[in-house]
């Protein structure tokens, strides 16, 4: 299984905020067990989608030179369900960026309906301790599979269209 819990970025403002969408589909194996007869997107996977949205927003701020890892979720609240056929929109706002890591506030909506919200804390992994491949994998995660389109919708910190890299 490929661990992509967002499908595409639809808005990306470097260093500020980003929106990504995730389409919930009956082709996702786990929905048939979660729950039988009542398929709903698991909260943990919505949290992962919010973390991926926020983590990439944070990572991009540092040009993906740091390895960004999910460290702590101080707060998360689930308000309603997301069902097959729904398009979840994750909105992440960058609240703090520092050498050690960063904090994002995220919401998940289906249309106007608020599904979940979370505060997520990320750490930058100490590269001297991390295996060499971890950093490369994060860059690959973002730049493969058409997530690359973040650069098409993105604006760089100074408001200009983000350059392709």
């Amino acid at each position, binding site marked *: 299984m490929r661990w992509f819990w967002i499908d595409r970025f639809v808005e990306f403002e470097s260093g500020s905020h980003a929106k990504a969408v995730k389409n919930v589909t009956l082709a996702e194996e786990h929905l048939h067990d979660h729950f039988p007869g009542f398929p709903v997107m698991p909260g943990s996977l919505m949290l992962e989608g919010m973390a991926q949205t926020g983590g990439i927003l944070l990572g991009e701020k540092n040009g993906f030179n740091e390895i960004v890892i999910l*460290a*702590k979720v*101080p707060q998360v609240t689930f308000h309603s369900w997301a069902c097959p056929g729904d398009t979840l929109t994750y909105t992440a706002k960058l609240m*703090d960026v*520092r*050498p*050690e*890591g960063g*904090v994002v506030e995220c919401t998940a909506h289906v249309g106007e309906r608020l599904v979940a919200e979370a505060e997520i*804390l990320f*750490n930058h992994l100490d590269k001297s301790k991390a295996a060499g491949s971890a950093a490369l994998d994060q860059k690959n995660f973002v730049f493969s599979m058409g997530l690359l389109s973040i650069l098409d919708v993105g604006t760089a910190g100074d408001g200009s269209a983000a350059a392709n890299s």
Partner: protein
Amino acid sequence: MPTEKEIYEKVREILVDALGADESECTMDATLMGDLGAESIDFLDIVFRLEKAFNVKIPRGELFPDNFAAADPNLTKDGSLTAAGIAELRKRLPHADVDKFAKDPKVENIQDLFTVGMIVKFMEAKLAAGT
């Protein structure tokens, strides 16, 4: 410039948020790791919330020094801090109760220095200095 009581109340609220601790547990002497169950990841969360609540900047290592013992081999010997180590600790953590620590200066006891009171004293000094 807020009073010590006002600072303490803000710090206590932050620790309740960050650590899920009970207000009543967060006495001035309560240790973050021993009494309140904090882990290293919580330190970053606490620093972030302190910055936001008090509108200051807290650079890395100023409140919670990283890897204190590992940095310099002269600072420790056989699992305890040497005199040089204790002096360095006083320099880096003027807001902590190093005298109490010096009675049994084992490296593993360093974490007991991190109390609610230490954070309050740190914020008092920082706000007074206006940095």
